[in-house]
């Protein structure tokens, strides 16, 4: 190989890049040692290693970057054999292993080398460890086997005095030349097309362990020998399917992996040596590729046939195996550590057999195989003996126990396959895991009296006649009064035919009468059916037709649907002499609640007294509910959470506090209710809890207990809750079909679970996590949650087919039923259940269950469009419809308002010529265009208030498009919850105290702005000195990002929100934005001002700082200032920033040149606009454009211009002081072709340690989304590391 630098091969480039992102990560050191027992001829061995090392040129490689910033390589010195004598150590083998581990854990210097080591540890005269270590850039697994064999071959000859045998390795140049030839070849283009054809329709891939797959600095490892049963099974299936055993084994392991993926399809990675038919067949080097393999097990196919088919795909893939999968990943746009091309690696290495050394016993021990991003299953050795099963995993995603379980289960899976006809016959869980699921985890038997809800309430009437039963504002009823009034109404209802197995509908607003009505219906022996009069008449009409209620208790009959069944509160008797009606039996229906149905038909869930009694008595006892409790009812009665709100107090002599109508949407009103009525217990859907915590009134509230259910409770929300409110927090879970809730979890302040579990089953209830085929899913595995026990609903009213479909025979307990929730769940190792979302198209938005199919059916029923699909994007429903009429959306919206409840009407309609499909003819969801949640968007906002409000709408609704002055908040996709968020922001930012009604009355930008402006003077735009970009978690130190040249810090929002774990991020904005404020005299003065702001915002503890461009330069000075003040400074991140002296050397820019920096900040490419060569033109262009800058008031725009010019002047006069810590520099590697001197080392004189990273983006792209996806993890890791050190 020539002395000058050579480019890296495609195989090396990916590894180089990963190592460059994390230069201190030693995981790229691969290694093994061979335990040699017997008399070793040390000199012959030394000579053999020396010759093999010379032949294997890759071991001598050194790496650097060329003048133009590209990585390159050249040859240095070959490694010699080092001999280490451990014979005098107390435990020589242990000492040698420790030395091997230490060496592996030490990152090598790629530039200076050595990058490969050959070491012979002498343990005794007859025992040696021969350790090899090579950086992965130089060699791969097969290369290591070649090298080992070559040394063994040379040693045998040298020890016996024979001439050198065999053939030496071919030179490395052969591999480099072949790689270069492939890069531009037609073959590569063909290979690429082959892969794209097979992967273009790939949705987000399903893997065993979703999450960030970036190799940690170490990996977990477990190893066991394959059992004899498994070995025989693989051999027999290889024979039966006429495939090679390695392919058979790969296919079986893929089927095993797929069991841990919910989607039916997974993609595994198959390491491919990529040497066959190439020069690399005789060269140790890094050549290996990972071939992604789409695996869709057909559980019902003949096993041998399925194996043969998949093996055929593998062979075909290998034929195109030189095209790098990292390139395919980029081709497919899978950018970021969470968007992967494959999950588990399955690596069958039959060639890695125990090495043979003349006259010695040799045993191989693998110590490192390079980065482990997720999990890998490796099988080493021949099937004639039992190969090893090795599982290696990323400790950030897996734990020791999980991988040991996988090794054990996989072996059992392979063994079972030998006797299986079909994959379907093979269990996933081990026998002991199945036993635990069925018995230990579901031991919930608890005695419950044979009674009814009616009877439990009657007991309270007798026991607490004088206690306050119901409170509604200033009105209240004692238990005696409730008894009297409900008895009178019950008698009237009974006289109209109400009784066991009959239904009485209720459509009353929250009021005392509502409670009287429910109790009366139960006393009459009937079941109550809540109706929402705001639902479309067509829907109500369908429900009435199906339920055939005896009466409808409602204030009026707005749609003329109730007819003579209407019984308004004014007509109810207050007293009655009539006898008490017959009480119901425990198996009679207590209530019927309608939920969304996929066929477009709402379905009525019939729940018995026995079921709800179990639920209520469990809750009363479990949480110690007493007569002292005051329980808030605020959930609409059509939502089943209301059932316990109503009746939990009434069975314990406690007080039911009824919230006024509408209050459930207003978090401030809820907070006031809690305070005014001494509420001890209440419920929130988590998204509402979030809004509640945002309201100032919730700060410091003391409540006995808060229950969450209806949607997943986020861990961050739990933590925020406990920081803000003093109360127990309980997470409950259950579908309407199982009497409200079936599981519970205390999400207390010490709970650190992520996600927050749904916990454990309530009394007499079973939770089973099963796979698609009702097989038990092992702990840690996603499965379908099934429910059993007394709380199951009887079924769907009048729909026996649907009932039979969802309530199925329990395969484990004869005669029992299980309800298929359609929810995905997983057990932790300790048995706690976690909820993982919906399995089907049913979604939950704001806690409301929605069948997208029902929406699609309703759209189809309008006859307005040819086809339609409804999807959820950013928490809003979007309908894609096919129609020649571009304006079909408006007509549809009107039509659907008559057939769907408002929460199910799509927030946006996108009219297409055809729905995009994949090659398989399936809907291509990825290809659906992003909707514009915009109305007309035509007329731009005029006043500063309108602009501010339009920006706020866009921010809250996360819109990319401009919001016009006539745009309506709700038409843009807003809902009541986002309206609450808007309200809270209005209260923060405008004077006065607007209420929610204001937003509903004036939902358009112009109207709301006018209303707000009348109320008060407006302050200027949100250009505060410090703005909040992201909310943090406890424990994570805040990050302060300094504005770039324009002085505005909003551009950091994407980066701020990409950090994981989330942390508080603030942007510091320039004082010059406010024309009233004098610009400071120097960067140092500016930094002092900024340090003051940090001291105010965050008076103590560790802080991180950073900035892009000029912001980075200021951040360095800010770090020095903070350090001098004695503040602990963690990460200091400079995003493509360069020190002041580089700019002093440059000619002074003109005003226009300086202002062109604003173009980049506004998201334009300055190079694309050479015509903007005066101040007026730049400013004019920016004012016309669509950037945030364009939306600022003229005064503020002037402030931005002033800031750019001033900052530019200050930078040139600045002289850096040295910072005593580490500067992390992120270089925009794709940029600076014209100024190659702009490199990280320019900062070396200004810091103690320089941590330099390059990213393949342009300077102006750094704060954008794609670059942030790459930069955020780098910063997160630095900050976490700094926090560990500081702790």
């Amino acid at each position, binding site marked *: 190989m020539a002395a000058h630098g050579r480019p890296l091969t495609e195989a090396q480039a990916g590894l180089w890049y990963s190592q460059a992102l994390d230069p201190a990560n030693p995981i790229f050191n691969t290694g093994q040692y061979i335990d040699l027992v017997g008399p070793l001829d040390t000199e012959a061995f030394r000579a053999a290693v020396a010759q093999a090392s010379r032949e294997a040129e890759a071991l001598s490689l050194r790496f650097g970057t060329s003048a133009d910033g590209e990585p390159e390589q050249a040859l240095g010195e070959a490694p010699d054999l080092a001999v280490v004598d451990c014979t005098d150590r107390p435990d020589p083998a242990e000492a040698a292993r420790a030395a091997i581990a230490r060496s592996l854990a030490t990152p090598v210097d790629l530039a200076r080398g050595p990058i490969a080591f050959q070491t012979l540890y002498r343990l005794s005269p007859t025992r040696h460890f021969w350790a090899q270590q090579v950086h992965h850039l130089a060699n791969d697994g097969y290369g290591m086997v070649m090298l080992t064999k070559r040394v063994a071959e040379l040693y045998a000859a040298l020890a016996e005095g024979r001439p050198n045998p065999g053939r030496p390795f071919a030179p490395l140049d052969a591999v480099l030349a072949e790689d270069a030839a492939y890069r531009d070849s037609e073959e590569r283009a063909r290979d690429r097309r082959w892969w794209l054809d097979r992967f273009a329709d790939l949705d987000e891939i399903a893997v065993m362990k979703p999450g960030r797959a970036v190799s940690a600095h170490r990996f977990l490892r477990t190893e066991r020998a394959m059992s004899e049963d498994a070995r025989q099974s693989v051999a027999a299936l290889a024979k039966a399917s006429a495939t090679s055993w390695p392919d058979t084994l790969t296919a079986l392991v893929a089927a095993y992996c797929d069991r841990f993926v919910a989607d039916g399809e997974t993609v595994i990675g198959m390491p491919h040596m990529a040497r066959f038919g190439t020069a690399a067949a*005789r060269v140790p080097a890094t050549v290996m590729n990972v071939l992604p393999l789409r695996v869709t097990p057909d559980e019902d196919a003949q096993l041998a046939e399925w194996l043969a088919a998949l093996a055929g795909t593998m062979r075909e893939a290998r034929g195109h*195996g030189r095209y790098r999968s990292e390139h395919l990943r980029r081709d497919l746009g899978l950018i970021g550590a969470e968007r992967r091309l494959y999950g588990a690696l399955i690596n069958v290495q039959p*060639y890695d057999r125990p090495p043979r050394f003349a006259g010695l016993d040799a045993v191989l021990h693998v110590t490192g195989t390079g980065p482990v991003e997720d999990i890998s299953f490796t099988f080493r050795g021949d099937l004639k003996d039992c190969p090893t099963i090795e599982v290696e995993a990323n400790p950030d995603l897996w734990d020791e126990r999980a991988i040991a379980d996988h090794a054990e289960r996989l072996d059992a899976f392979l063994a079972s396959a030998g006797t299986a006809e079909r994959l379907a016959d093979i269990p996933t869980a081990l026998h002991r895991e199945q036993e635990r699921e069925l018995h230990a985890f579901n031991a919930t038997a608890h005695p419950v009296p044979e009674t009814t809800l009616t009877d439990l309430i009657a007991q309270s009437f007798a026991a607490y006649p004088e206690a306050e039963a119901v409170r509604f504002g200033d009105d209240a009823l004692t238990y005696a009064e409730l008894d009297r009034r409900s008895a009178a109404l019950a008698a009237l209802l009974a006289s109209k035919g109400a009784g066991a197995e009959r239904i009485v509908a209720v459509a009353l607003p929250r009021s005392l009468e509502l409670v009287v009505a429910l109790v009366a219906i139960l006393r009459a022996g009937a079941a109550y059916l809540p109706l929402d009069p705001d639902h479309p008449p067509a829907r109500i009409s369908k429900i009435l037709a199906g339920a055939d209620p005896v009466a409808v208790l409602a204030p009026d009959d707005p749609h003329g649907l109730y007819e003579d069944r209407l019984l308004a509160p004014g007509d109810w008797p207050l007293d009655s002499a009539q006898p008490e009606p017959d009480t119901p039996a425990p198996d009679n229906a207590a209530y019927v609640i309608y939920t969304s149905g996929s066929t477009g038909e709402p379905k009525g869930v019939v729940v018995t007294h026995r079921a709800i009694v179990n639920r209520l008595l469990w809750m009363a006892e479990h949480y110690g509910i007493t007569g002292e409790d005051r329980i808030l009812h605020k959930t609409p009665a059509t939502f089943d959470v209301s059932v316990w709100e109503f009746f939990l107090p009434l069975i314990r002599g406690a007080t039911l506090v009824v919230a006024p109508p509408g209050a459930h949407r207003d978090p401030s009103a809820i907070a006031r209710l809690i305070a005014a009525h001494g509420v001890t217990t209440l419920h929130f859907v988590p998204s509402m809890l979030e809004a509640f915590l945002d309201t100032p009134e919730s700060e410091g509230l003391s409540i006995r207990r808060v229950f969450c259910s209806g949607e997943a409770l986020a861990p961050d929300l739990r933590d925020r809750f406990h920081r803000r409110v003093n109360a127990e927090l309980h997470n409950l879970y259950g579908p309407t079909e199982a009497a409200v809730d079936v599981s519970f979890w205390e999400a207390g302040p010490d709970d650190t679970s992520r996600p927050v579990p749904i916990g454990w089953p309530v009394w007499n209830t079973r939770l089973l996590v099963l796979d698609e085929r009702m097989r038990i899913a092992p702990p840690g595995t996603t499965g379908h949650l099934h429910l059993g026990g007394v709380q199951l609903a009887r079924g769907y009213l009048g729909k026996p087919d649907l009932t039979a479909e969802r309530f199925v025979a329990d395969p484990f307990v004869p005669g029992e039923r299980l309800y298929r929730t359609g929810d995905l769940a997983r057990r932790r190792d300790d048995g706690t259940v976690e909820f993982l979302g919906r399995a089907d198209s049913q979604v939950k938005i704001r806690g409301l269950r929605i069948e997208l199919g029902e929406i699609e059916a309703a759209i189809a029923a309008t006859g307005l469009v040819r086809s339609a699909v409804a999807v959820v994007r950013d928490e809003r429903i979007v309908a894609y419809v096919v129609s020649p009429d571009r304006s079909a959306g408006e007509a549809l919206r009107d039509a659907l308002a008559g057939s769907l409840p408002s929460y199910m009407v799509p927030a946006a309609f996108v009219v297409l010529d055809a729905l995009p499909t994949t090659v398989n003819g399936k809907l291509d969801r990825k290809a659906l265009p992003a909707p514009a949640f915009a109305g007309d968007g035509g007329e731009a906002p005029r006043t500063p208030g309108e602009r501010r409000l339009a920006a706020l709408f866009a921010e809250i609704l996360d819109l990319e498009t401009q919001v016009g002055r006539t745009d309506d908040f709700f038409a843009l996709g807003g809902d009541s919850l986002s309206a609450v968020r808007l309200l809270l922001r209005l209260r923060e930012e405008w004077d006065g105290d607007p209420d929610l009604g204001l937003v509903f009355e004036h939902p358009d930008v112009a109207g709301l702005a006018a209303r707000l402006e009348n109320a008060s003077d407006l302050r200027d735009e949100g250009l505060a000195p410090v703005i909040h970009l992201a909310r943090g978690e406890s424990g994570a130190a805040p990050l302060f990002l300094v504005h770039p040249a324009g002085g505005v810090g909003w551009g950091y929002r994407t980066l701020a929100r990409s950090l994981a774990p989330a942390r508080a991020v603030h942007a510091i904005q320039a004082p010059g934005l406010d024309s009233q404020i004098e610009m400071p005299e120097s960067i140092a003065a500016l930094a002092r001002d900024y340090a003051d702001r940090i001291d105010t915002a965050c008076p103590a503890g560790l802080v991180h700082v950073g900035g892009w461009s000029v912001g980075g330069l200021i951040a360095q000075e800010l770090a020095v200032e903070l350090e001098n003040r004695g503040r602990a400074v963690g990460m200091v991140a400079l995003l493509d920033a360069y020190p002041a002296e580089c700019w002093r050397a440059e000619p002074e820019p003109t005003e226009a040149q300086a202002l062109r920096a604003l173009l980049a900040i506004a998201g334009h490419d300055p190079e694309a606009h050479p015509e903007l060569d005066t101040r007026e033109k730049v400013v004019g262009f920016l004012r016309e454009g669509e950037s945030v800058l364009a939306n600022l008031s003229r005064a503020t725009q002037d402030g931005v211009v002033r800031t750019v010019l001033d900052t530019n002047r200050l930078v040139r006069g600045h002289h850096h002081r040295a910072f005593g810590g580490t500067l992390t520099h992120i270089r925009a590697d794709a940029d600076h072709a014209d100024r190659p001197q702009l490199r990280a080392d320019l900062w070396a004189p200004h810091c103690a340690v320089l941590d330099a990273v390059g990213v393949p983006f342009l300077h102006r792209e750094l704060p954008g989304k794609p670059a942030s996806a790459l930069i955020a993890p780098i910063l997160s890791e630095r900050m976490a590391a700094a926090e560990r050190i500081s702790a």
Partner: protein
Amino acid sequence: MTATIRDDLRTDIAEIIEVAPDTIGDDTNLLDAGLDSMRAMNLAMLWEERGVPLDFADLSEAPTLGELHALARQRSTAPN
């Protein structure tokens, strides 16, 4: 003797790529005939056990029966 080595090689190759031995001529490109890297690896391992002096790299560089046979003959007659 030579004929026997050639026939043995042919039989082994045919078995690995699942074709009838008589379809493999001296000049048949084995890659085209279905020899992929995994099968080549298995074949190389089989030959290593039997002491046939051909390895994976040989299969990679000389993927016809004629070339392989020539290599094997040359190595088994070469002085060692």
